[in-house]
């Protein structure tokens, strides 16, 4: 084989890798198209779901229209919400930015409108605000909880490899809570921390749940590293520190990363569930409000749009995570399949 032939073979391999990547994106897009097509079909008049499920377009219109300031909700609770500046109501971009910037900016524009404020600004009920800020608050809470739980779970799990006493203390506790579905613990968290400290309740529960999962995954990942590899490291002069750094840390990444995906997927559901149970701000609270207003014409679109938002968000975040994980673990079989 000449060097030109070798170059040809390599170019062909690169082309095939790109082809595989194009196929993967195409399948993903086809899946999305299929999802929206089925949704649209079951929302058509004549379908048994016609009254329960609005079309994707109506859902989107409702979601976008309520993202910055939710007029649909404010109308129901008009006595409790101050007027907002017309610019805020009519300009979707302004709605989103005002929501993202937080309560203060929204409050300032409310005052600027000259309208009376029946309650202190910043302490308005959740239904006075658009969906954007609620959804953002939930996302931030869940991500903080998942990050805290991951750090805690990994610290406890990996340190238990070095200090077996940690495992002796923590494993029975984790096993006890781990055997009961975490969703059973959710109401207790709401009662314990109450709706007064929503940050503690949502973040606390997600942290607790993620810590348990990541503890088990990190332990299992370390146990699954072949003994021969650790022994080989020892005979090459590996110290506990170098073995931890160069064997256990990289070797446990695939399983820990897989565990994190599972934990985060559960955390979305768990975080929203806790908010539905009584927290006054967040996407789950919006679902609770619309559940209360179920007789209203906008309710199906509101509920479907919020649920779809979280579903799509979870899928998108998981997809991003998957790409990152595959890059980090490109040494493994998964990396090979992706052509990295």
């Amino acid at each position: 084989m000449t060097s030109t032939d070798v170059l040809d073979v390599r170019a062909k391999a690169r082309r095939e890798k790109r082809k595989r990547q194009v196929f993967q994106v195409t399948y993903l897009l086809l899946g999305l198209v299929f999802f929206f097509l089925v949704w649209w079909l079951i929302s058509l008049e004549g379908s048994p779901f016609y009254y329960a499920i609005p079309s994707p377009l109506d859902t989107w219109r409702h979601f976008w229209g309520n993202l910055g300031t939710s007029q649909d909700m404010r109308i129901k609770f008009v006595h409790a919400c101050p007027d907002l500046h017309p610019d805020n109501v009519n300009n979707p971009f302004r709605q989103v930015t005002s929501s993202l910037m937080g309560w203060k900016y929204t409050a300032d524009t409310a005052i600027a409108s000259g309208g009376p404020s029946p309650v202190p600004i910043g302490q308005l009920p959740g239904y006075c605000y658009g969906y954007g800020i609620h959804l953002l608050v939930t996302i931030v809470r869940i991500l903080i909880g998942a990050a805290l739980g991951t750090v805690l779970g990994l610290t406890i799990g990996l340190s238990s490899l070095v200090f077996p006493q940690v495992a002796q203390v923590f494993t029975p506790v984790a096993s006890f809570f781990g055997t009961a579905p975490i969703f059973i613990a959710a109401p207790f968290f709401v009662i314990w921390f109450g709706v007064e400290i929503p940050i503690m309740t949502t973040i606390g529960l997600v942290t607790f749940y993620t810590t348990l999962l990541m503890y088990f995954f990190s332990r299992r990942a370390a146990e699954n590293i072949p003994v021969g590899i650790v022994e080989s490291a020892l005979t090459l002069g590996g110290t506990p520190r170098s073995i931890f750094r160069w064997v256990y840390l990289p070797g446990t990444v695939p399983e820990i990363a897989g565990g994190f995906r599972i934990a985060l997927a559960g955390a979305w559901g768990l975080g929203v569930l806790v908010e539905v149970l009584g927290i006054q701000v967040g996407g789950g609270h919006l679902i609770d409000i619309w559940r209360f207003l179920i007789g209203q014409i906008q309710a199906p679109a509101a509920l479907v749009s919020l649920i779809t938002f979280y579903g799509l968000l979870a899928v998108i975040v998981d997809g991003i995570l998957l790409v990152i994980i595959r890059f980090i673990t490109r040494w493994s079989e998964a990396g090979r399949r992706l052509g990295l």
Partner: protein
Amino acid sequence: MSRVVRFEGLWCVFEHRSGQLVNALQDVTFDVQSGEFVCVVGRSGHGKTTLLRVLAGLQPPTAGQARLGDQVVEGPGADRAMVFQQDTVFPWLHVRENVEFGLRAMNVSDKEREKTTDRWLEAVGLTDFADSWPRELSGGMRKRVALASAMAVGSDVILMDEPFGSLDYFTRRNLHEVLLDLWKETKKTIFFVTHDIEEALILADRVILLAEGRLVDDIPVRLPRPRDEDVRASAPSVEITKTILAHLGITEEEATKV
């Protein structure tokens, strides 16, 4: 030649799940001289790997001791790097990082580490694959990585536990040549466990024969090198083979049938 390894009245007794005691090693005593290529031969389950693991410090003996120089072996260390039967190359490290592992653990400076790694990668013919992942290499190439990693840490004694057992005939022969070249060049002491008599005859200065955990014979192999087919078919070589087979309880007729 000076003595580098000594086994003194070594016993290793394991308790089987049934409660029965199994003597993996029974009163094994012998010395290994510096620069020797020693092959430990025996049937499966007759104590070869246990003997090696005791010397590696991975298995404490029940009685007796293994000595490396004047030191009693009490744990693993880079002075006895080991190449294992199974694939123990770190899959998450590039080939270069694998070879560097022991040097990193010993806090060798970056410059020295790079120089040493390059040297051993070249010695095993993997310079062009330094930045490859182990999964991109064949089984034989991964064994070369393991061999380079063991050589790079600079230990005087290299332990090898049936390292080429899972490879095909041609790859194995190729790796025998690589190993013998390295041995000649470095004068390291190599302690090689195998159940393959032909492999022992190609490689060894001396064959230690184990049967049921006992040292049953210590056979010097004074055949000329390189030990090609002609040498292995010569009368002295055949004589050694017959001796080994007899000790293992296999007649020539049985061996031919196998």
